[in-house]
């Protein structure tokens, strides 16, 4: 009995430890080529140069334009998905009746199922022309419509996971709030959302991660033009777009041009790592207040 407990714990530990192996594997795969890359390109210019033209005759290796592109599309996506997703979660949990929720929640989850290339074409052929009528000067490829559509795509991550988190809050808390004369809105934001904050935060982190890592949608609709700008109206390029285009493109493997994708990959990795550390820190600080 006791040994079997130990064995089970060992197996569970192993499952968790595999994630470390995965990370190690990723870092190894990325680093082996990145080292070669940085023997030819200085880290300083990689981090500070404002142009990214490794595939042109005149090569510049400034990662900033790609970082800016990723940041821009992600920020727009979250700006769309967070309010809508969280509102839906609260609406479904607090206002809608059980049968409505039971139908709508899985329906919305379908949004996450649609292949992202479909979203890409939707952004390009429907959303962009529509936005162009409102915003003159909006380029055919732009971060705005790609980001907005990506926001729609990740709504279910936030709405479903947050709704789960909210409905996991003990009923007695909700009753306490109602018992004090709270409106549903006050119950939701004053009691339920704070009590479910950990789960909601996780849903947001997952959504951000998905937005940062999304590729095909931005590749189709946001353009492939690295540009150091926060202007959402012009074509940009994200880190993921660059990686997928080069790795599936005609560039010779093993060349400096090809190695750039590993340098970009590492950057993205460090980028998300920093992001996660920050959100983890926030989460910890926030939770200490209540637990």
């Amino acid at each position, binding site marked *: 009995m006791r040994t079997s407990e130990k064995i089970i714990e060992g197996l569970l530990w192993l499952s968790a430890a595999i994630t470390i192996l995965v990370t190690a594997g990723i870092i190894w795969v990325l680093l082996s080529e990145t080292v070669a890359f940085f023997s030819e390109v200085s880290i300083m210019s990689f981090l500070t140069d404002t142009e990214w033209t490794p595939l042109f005759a005149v090569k510049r290796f400034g990662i900033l334009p790609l970082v800016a592109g990723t940041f821009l599309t992600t920020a727009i996506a979250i700006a769309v998905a967070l309010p809508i997703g969280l509102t839906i979660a609260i609406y479904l949990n607090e206002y809608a009746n059980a049968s409505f929720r039971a139908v709508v929640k899985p329906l919305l989850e379908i949004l996450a199922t649609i292949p992202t290339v479909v979203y890409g074409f939707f952004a390009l052929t429907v959303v962009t022309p529509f936005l162009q009528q409102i915003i003159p000067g909006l380029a055919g490829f732009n971060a705005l419509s790609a980001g907005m559509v990506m926001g729609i795509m990740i709504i279910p991550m936030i709405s479903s996971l947050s709704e789960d988190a909210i409905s996991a809050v003990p009923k007695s808390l909700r009753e306490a709030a109602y018992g004090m004369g709270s409106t549903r809105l006050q119950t939701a934001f004053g009691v339920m959302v704070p009590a479910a904050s950990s789960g909601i935060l996780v849903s947001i982190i997952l959504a951000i991660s998905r937005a940062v*890592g999304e590729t095909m949608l931005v590749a189709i609709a946001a353009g492939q033009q690295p540009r150091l700008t926060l202007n959402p109206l012009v074509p940009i390029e994200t880190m993921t777009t660059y990686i997928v285009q080069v790795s599936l493109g005609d560039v010779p493997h093993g060349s400096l041009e090809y190695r750039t994708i590993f340098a970009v990959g590492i950057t993205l990795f460090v980028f998300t790592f920093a992001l996660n550390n920050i959100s983890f820190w926030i989460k910890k600080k926030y939770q200490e207040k209540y637990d």
Partner: protein
Amino acid sequence: MTNSDRNRLKDKAFQVFGVFCTFIGLAVLAIFLIDILIDGLGRINWEFLNNLPSRRAHRAGIYTAWIGTLWILLLTTVIAFPLGISAGIYLEEYAKKSRMATILEINIANLAGVPSIIYGLLGLEIFVRLMALGGSLLAGALTLSLLILPIVIVTTREAIKAVPRSIREGSFALGASKWQTVWHQVLPASFGGILTGVILAMSRAVGEAAPLIVIGALAYVPFAPASPMDEFTVLPIQIFNWISRPQAAFATNAAAAIIVLLLITFILNGIAVYLRHKWQKRIKW
């Protein structure tokens, strides 16, 4: 206006906003579905499901692709879910609040943000070359498993977290060991939430093409895979392929293939949603 009127107004306003947001989500979904159905529904017939790839759009079918997709989903599920749920359990129930646990937690959140294509590069080096699995279903499924592992782990943890401590204590007090408590109480009580993760993760896995292309999944496979070691193609690759063809008829094919892809995920999700619904009805604290 009194304060309470204001609160009531806010409450109503939020309700309207809630309906509006839900409606936006559903409307976009409806637009997508209708658009795709209009484009592709007419193309779906027995031949389409049963034909091999072809240069002639009207003769091209998705037989090998949908079988490959089912294989990939099956294998990925078999690999990723036990692994992910185990890891989630370990982190939530066993790991002390140590440095290691913190590192693991950040690490997993981090993995969730790694773009799929990087997983493709990882899979290519580790599974295809190092483990010599070649461009097989197994290599593809392992790659996608790593890709969705973070989602499964994170959602499992959240679901487990929601189980009240009093339930665990009740179980411990009856002499249940840690694992028994997890197995008999925590997992059943959190299964509904875990299923949400399963749904999201499956949705993610089923639509991925880029990492599979990198590890060597094929676009033209005129034979259906029969074992995990066989070469394969999947619907998303077929779809990408057709979408980038110049001929409009291939776009129709792509729409039809998307319908089939959605149908496959609907059915799988439907099962998961049904189970979740059943489960959550049973458990109300």
